């Protein structure tokens, strides 16, 4: 465990063209969102379950991944199990005119795993920049947060670190199987983003 974070592959731009998801895609998503079968031919197993051609399943997954609907296929480790016991959500109050530059600089740090702008909700919540930092212990997280503070300098009006103390739920994303709201008739009524 040398450097905690390794950079992910480039993400599809959110401005990319709309994605068309048909009824079969939705069935495929519903069948795989909790995981792939641990079968030597997992896509064939999914195809069998859905009554589809395995090559169609693989072609659809390839297309969904290229379109950014699937961010990645693979494993999601539990941070704690890998020794990252301190999980700090660092939050920062940055002037609106400086936020994009600050966000890009913080997001480029190799130990920041998520970096988002979110709205302030004064008076309870003055922070508009969120940067998730993981470490073996809180001291390691504090050290990384200090590096963010040094990088941002006078742009920081206030900041805090919220440590997670317990995972209350972690099921990942769930969508329902196709329902009357999503006609199942041969891919009609595609929804787009």
């Amino acid at each position, binding site marked *: *465990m040398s450097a905690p974070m390794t950079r992910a592959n480039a993400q599809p731009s*959110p401005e990319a063209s709309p994605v068309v998801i048909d009824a079969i895609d939705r069935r495929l998503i519903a069948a795989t969102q909790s995981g792939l079968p641990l079968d030597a031919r997992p896509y064939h197993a999914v195809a069998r379950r859905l009554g589809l051609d395995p090559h169609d399943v693989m072609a659809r997954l390839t297309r969904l*991944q290229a379109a950014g*609907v699937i961010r990645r296929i*693979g494993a999601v480790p539990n941070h704690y199990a890998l020794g990252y016991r301190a999980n700090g959500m660092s939050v920062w109050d940055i002037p609106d005119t400086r936020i994009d530059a600050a*966000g890009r600089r913080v*997001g480029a740090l190799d130990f920041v795993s998520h970096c988002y702008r979110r709205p302030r909700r004064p008076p309870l919540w003055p922070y508009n920049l969120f940067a998730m930092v993981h470490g073996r212990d809180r001291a390691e997280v504090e050290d990384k947060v200090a590096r963010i503070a040094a990088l941002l300098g006078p742009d920081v009006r206030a900041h805090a670190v919220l440590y997670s103390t317990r995972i209350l739920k972690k099921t990942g994303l769930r969508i329902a199987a196709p329902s009357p709201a999503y006609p199942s008739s041969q891919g009609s009524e595609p929804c787009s*983003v």
Partner: protein
Amino acid sequence: MSDTDAMTLDPVDRHLINALQDGFPIVERPFAAVAAQLDLDEDEVVARIRRLLDAGVLSRFGPLYDAERMGGGLTLAALAVPPERFDEVAGIVNAFPEVAHNYARDHALNMWFVIATERPQQVRSVIEAIEAASGLPVLDLPKIEEYFLGLRLDA
């Protein structure tokens, strides 16, 4: 966490976890492809993934979907829960299938959860339902801009 504490990861597990975070091929026998890359055999790769999932070292294995690219709604929400009501309110929040993750955090806003819905406008109704069921105001903090989202953690 006791299960995961008890499991010791050997170097092969660590290589496998790292490799599986770089992506999993969409081919007829993807475990065989991963095995060839790591100089293992297919059965061993499948068996190790099963063991890592059972032990909770991996929380998921499969496609990671982007709710917003699918046309769905997504937000980060927070609650300031009185300590004596914490478990009760956690039960209320977790009972919503739209709540994907929920974490306790050490702050006045002590419960933080992600709401993912099939349609963007459904986020509001889930928030209102949580407020009605808990009697507490929900802070709604949707993403305005994504500067970085990392998808892997070195094992």
